[in-house]
């Protein structure tokens, strides 16, 4: 597979390490009332989408960026690649 890195251009997916669903960015509040349930779902329950899925890839043999790649799990077609840091900020993560 080829991942079109937003900063570096197309690179072989073999340079990357895969983590999984980009929902892992949405780490729950540890002090919330329902933290135990929220962390269970965060840690263990997956949509496991058959179709376009946002997922986390790490460019370990490259610039060390974490990326959010939108890839169809049925066809492997990639339609978007973003820096995970930008996505995380857009989803409200900060310090």
């Amino acid at each position, binding site marked *: *597979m*080829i991942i079109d890195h937003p900063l570096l251009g*197309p690179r*072989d997916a073999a340079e990357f*390490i895969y*983590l999984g669903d980009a929902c*892992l*960015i949405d*780490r*729950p509040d*540890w*002090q919330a009332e329902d*933290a*135990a349930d929220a*962390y*269970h779902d*965060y*840690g263990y329950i997956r949509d496991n989408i058959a179709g376009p899925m946002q997922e*986390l890839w*790490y460019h*370990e043999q490259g610039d*060390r*960026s*974490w990326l959010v790649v939108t890839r169809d799990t049925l*066809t*492997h*077609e*990639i339609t978007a690649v973003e*820096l*995970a*840091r930008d996505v*995380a*900020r857009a989803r409200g*993560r*900060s*310090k």
Partner: protein
Amino acid sequence: MSQVNRIKGGLVDRSKSLDFTFNGKSMTGYAGDTLASALLANGQVLVGRSFKYHRPRGILTAGSEEPNALVQLRSGAAQEPNTRATMTELFDGLTATSQNHRGSLEFDLMAVTDLASPFLAAGFYYKTFMWPAAFWEKVYEPIIRASAGLGRLSMQDDPDTYDKGFLHCDLLVIGAGPSGLAAALAGARSGARVILADEDFAPGGRLNSETLEVDGMAGADWAAQAVAELAAMDNVRLMTRTSVYGAYDHGVYGALERCTDHLPGSGGKPRQVLWRIYSKRAVLAAGATERPIAFGNNDRPGIMMASAVRTYVNRFGVAPGKRVAVLTNNDDGWRTAQDLAAKGVEIAAIIDTRDRPAVCDVKGARHVRGAGVVDTAGRLALKRITLTDGQMIDVDCLAVSGGWNPTVHLTCHQRGRPVWNEDLSAFVPGKDLPQGMVVAGAANGNLTLAAALDEGRKAANAQIKDLGFTVSRKAAPKAEDEAYEGAPKWHIPSGKKRAWVDFQNDVTVKDVKLSHQEGFRSVEHLKRYTTTGMATDQGKTSNIPALAIMAECTGKTIPETGTTIFRPPYTPIPIGALAGRARGTDFRPYRLTPSHEWAKAHGATFVEVGNWLRAQWFVKGNEKGWRDSVDREVLNTRQSVGICDVTTLGKIDIQGKDAAEFLNKVYANGFAKLAVGRVRYGIMLREDGICYDDGTTARMGENHFVMTTTTANAVLVFRRMEFVRQCLFPDMDVHLISTTDAWAQFAVAGPNARKLLEKIVDADSQDMSNEGFPFMACGEVTVCGGTPARLFRISFSGELAYEVAVPARYGNSMMEALMKAGEEFGACPYGTEALGVMRIEKGHAAGNELDGRTTAHMLGMGRMVSSKKDCIGWTLSQRPEMMREDAEKLVGFRPVDRSQKLIAGSHFINKGDEATMANDQGWMTSVAWSPSLDHSVGLGFIKSGDTRMGEIVRAVSPVHDTEMEVEIVSAHFIDPEGERLRA
């Protein structure tokens, strides 16, 4: 044997004779021959035996689809089983032997299976060999295995080397036949970067095998001219002997280039190179494969594909027979008759299954309309054929044309499904092609020359135009569109005679019918039950006929019955080539510690630790076994001082205004308040609350930390910290960079460690007194007269200990300096084994304890996990079953009988209980012989271990058929109060 079947003409070089042997017989061929053409030239019709019935077999095709002519090529370690004679370029000194027979090729004892064939129908083995149960492995299976299989591995290490590589192009053209050449020319003339690959050694495809003309010249000449033009362009890479075997995601193709297979030896160069081709676009111009027709005894040597017969005559100047008949269901078969007749080969008859007038005149040939062949005769070679009406014709070669299948393989590699084309009676590429691929020419169902040339050019032009190139205006090559018409005929009813569908796996029409009768009607069931298409040719000649016969049985159309798709590789690829250089000690790179050379020169035995090589122990004097060395190193260190290269521990440089807060997130225990100049031990949890790494982190400055990780987890910790930094807390100002290799780091441990280091550390750079540099202090110092260094007062051994780091280039020299400085104290180097013994004596957890299932609670560090801050893993670490009172806890163990040696991996069973899983109390993780205590010591996890001190349990190891009584003790065997390390 002389070349009895060699006729004039062809593309072979008659000035270069090549000697070779087949089954020990000396033969001669010419440069430009394949082994198959040379065998035919020498009159060798019988070349192998079939898989199941050991039927005599001859050459069927002239390409990579060959199911029969598989030989053992070369000899000794270089022996290569199952090699297609049709794809083997002849070289001087080639040796080949036939395979899969007991006794000689001519008198194969295993041919008795053919007589038993009524009892060996498809799937017979599922219905028998079940009694008695124990006989399967001992009796039936060995017999089956010995008779199955085809060729034989040499059982010696592959003597050749392989390489790999990466290529990039705008346009990849697969196949250098007419459409491929037209495509490559169009692409190249536009300036695009083009790769043209073909599995043959001579580009040109069918142009080399036909008598058709292009641009007014012989097809082969036009191909040579096109190749010359391409070869002269520096934006073109022309790759012959290269099979593009797989289409992978996003335009990546796998290709195998056979670099030295056509030579007597590899001359020290890689035999083959496995290329990964990154293409923006691709044109698949793989041509088409002719398919056989099933009829009674259609597998005899001498029965060949009509197009292959043409190839042997036109390209190789070899007549596969003296008196030839043609069986065809289409116009193309007539061309074989025409071409052969033109070369003076006698054509006995043209049997057209269609009831229609002659397609053309063929001198002296009888035209039999609307008929077929129902039987053949000749034990080891074809002698006679019997037609539908019973008449018999004596021939030594029967050329069969059942129409053409576009070579759609690569279009299916991403599970694209070909679609049925009624006009061609064949599957053609569907719409769901791999990204960036278009198909042209015969592969796309355009079976005529002019159409192929035209489509190749147009396909390439469309592709490169899309990429922004300006299309060349040069006109398309001109050729006649020869007639092509056919009517499907899959098999000719032949009474009780067996009619082969899959030649290699011996699947007949009857087997397909039986499969239907027993309910295996889905095309996948058919393949699996009968083994059709599972042979080394992957069903290139058999899949469609089998499917068609199943369709007849079910009364459905072929597309209703099913579609078979193809998986990579297109043709089989040696495992050696797929592995490339990665074998033996080159399997993975070695990482060497900075003091590696010193260690090598001082008696070190090395051990693989991940990719690192570390000194395991150092043999001194007359030490006989490793225990002698390790015991000495431990005692020497505990009594005086020892030195160990610990560079392999991961080191991560962490800087930023938020670095301290960041560490608070990634460590379970607090780091924000760590003072500058101090070190702290920390444990890291995964988000699921399990401990996965531990180490120390030193605060070098307000915004600057240096973290150490375990050797094994260095990369993983870095990756996870980058995740936390970029994905969870993207607004923290924190920056990570690995410095593992940058610093050579040495542990200096033992009561004399300070005295030793006082000689190394420049006095003006650091006060080395216990007060000036206490336990868990760190600092930037200089050593040996000004070399910058880092000093940490940390201890893994439990002794007064330091770790000192210098830039790695000084590592080897630093080891020498430390040893020299330690001479007066009797300092010794120690290896990983002594390191392990000392950490077990001290009760420190390491890899064996942190196996990815361990909680801080189990380690007795539950209270270190701070509940006052948000750290990775806190919430999930609090789940009820992870906090159980009776969880397995890390404790120490010693044998009740002190002379006994503990066994790591033993399980604990309470006294009096049976050794069952239900009674399992825990397990021993690490053991060592403690030279300090003179008995074996162990660490392990046992239920509620922290409350069971002094209890005696059994440590059982049924793998060793042994058990012993052990006492539960504190894990801290040495200096439990930690006085030594603070001294």
